[in-house]
């Protein structure tokens, strides 16, 4: 008996380029502008509970009220609340290739109580610890447009 030919399965392989243009909006734009032009972190305050919102936004989720333009400058110092470092290179869609990252990255609790995700300058894994004090290192040349471009990383500081 003749052998039944095995079925061939076709794969359609393609790479697509997806250019996007997101509007940061009124509130995030203010933060990004301050970062870009003045190397400052700012955010707005809820008119009702007086808590600082983060990132700056138009509604306080807790009070369910519209937040206004009560802007506050934040410290760019903080404490490492958690960290990790990449060992196995992952696909980075922004670079279009597998990227290994030398800098550990961390969740940093800023002194005004906001969390921020950023890289750490310290590359010695033995020296990393939760609770270490850090401060933002701002990009000097060719200003960026947002959090990951205007702050290069956070540098370990004494206090």
């Amino acid at each position, binding site marked *: 008996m003749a052998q039944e030919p095995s*079925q061939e*399965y076709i*794969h359609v392989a393609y790479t*697509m380029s*997806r250019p996007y243009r*997101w509007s*940061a909006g009124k509130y*995030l734009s203010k933060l*990004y502008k301050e970062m870009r032009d003045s190397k400052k972190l700012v955010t707005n305050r809820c008119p009702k509970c007086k808590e600082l*919102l*983060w*990132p700056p936004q138009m509604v306080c*989720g807790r009070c369910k009220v519209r937040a206004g333009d009560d802007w506050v400058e934040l410290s760019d110092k903080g404490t490492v*609340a*958690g*960290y*990790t*470092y*990449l*060992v*196995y290179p*992952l*696909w*980075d*869609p*922004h670079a279009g290739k597998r990227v290994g*990252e030398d800098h550990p*990255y*961390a*969740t940093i*609790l800023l002194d005004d*109580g*906001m*969390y*921020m*995700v*950023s*890289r750490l300058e310290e590359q010695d*894994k033995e020296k990393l610890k*939760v609770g270490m004090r850090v401060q933002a290192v701002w990009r000097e040349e060719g200003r960026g447009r*947002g*959090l*990951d*471009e205007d702050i290069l990383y956070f540098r370990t500081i004494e206090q």
Partner: protein
Amino acid sequence: MANRVAIVGIGQTYHKSRRPDVSQPEMANEAVRAALADAQLSMKDIESVFFSNMETFEGIYLPDHGMADEAGSFMKPGFKIASGGTSGIAAAKEAFHFVASGLFSIALVLGFEKHDAGDTTAAITAATTLAWGKGQARGAIGEFAKQASNYMKQSGATEEHAAMVRLKADRCACRNPYAHLRLGLKSVEEILKSGYLEWPLRLLDFCPQSCGACALIIASEEEARRITNKPVWIADVVAVHQEPFRAGAFCDLDGREPYSQDVASTKLYKRNGITNPRRDIDMAEIYEPSNWEEMFLCEVFHFCEENEGWKLIEKGITEIEGEFPVNPSGGVLATNPIGATPTIRVAECALQIRGDAGEHQVTRDVKTAVATALGGPNWTAMVLLRRSL
């Protein structure tokens, strides 16, 4: 007063890294047919279909429209939910709401993800907003790596404990014919030899990307009693959403904001007279993307005291034969078709209640079970199932 609602049909595909033999609709259809066969129903009996899938992972626009025929939703109403990791329970929750309201008598829930089509981590990383660390976020892996390092520091759990959770998951998966990774792991040492993806997460500490689908048939009490003599009642559903960035990670490490898991489970337990979850519930299927996360989630769902999640695995409490089995199916660590992953949690709880889990049926009698899901932003969705109401 809402109608009572039961699960009357359960179906899932087997799971693999790649399914070159089927298209996305063909794969989903396997689960649909399995659920219909389980309930002894046909597509004509289904009034509405609730889909769960994250379409950016496959790059297929409106997949629920593209598989209307294969899902049995041709010329019927329904919708797709894409809420990250909670999608598959959110879809079940909506089917529950619609049947409880009396609008439909029989509905189908269909979770599916064909991970071989794209790169999920790249899709998540690309879609991250600037505020959430665009250009630095590494999909889910980075977040769970940070959570693991925090949990280690806070609770005193060690890498050995995490390895014990993976070992349990693998033992369970080896008894579940539908599970994806069935590695036959023998020892903690073997797991501790696997390389780090992102410290302290090792390759074997994290969930895989699976191709697979899971379907549930949800029916009103009247239909349920006609269809099956083993209905599994949906006692309650709950979902809690949280903005993750304000809390910084998936949680507020400062303790200023409660965990969404804590809020969701407290609400669910209170509404259902559960005062001691580990006593009043018999087992759980939870969405644990990493072994570290399983230990932590057991705490925030109040299966144990704070910082004692690792003691559950140390004492064997969460094993198939244990006092409170967690993820006897092998869980997400073994099988992770994201859109279907939470649907599988519900399906597995229902199978345990029916006594139909086969080789991975837990030792204790399961009358009450809880299924949970964890979504991209820190969202939590839960379903409480009972053998009788």
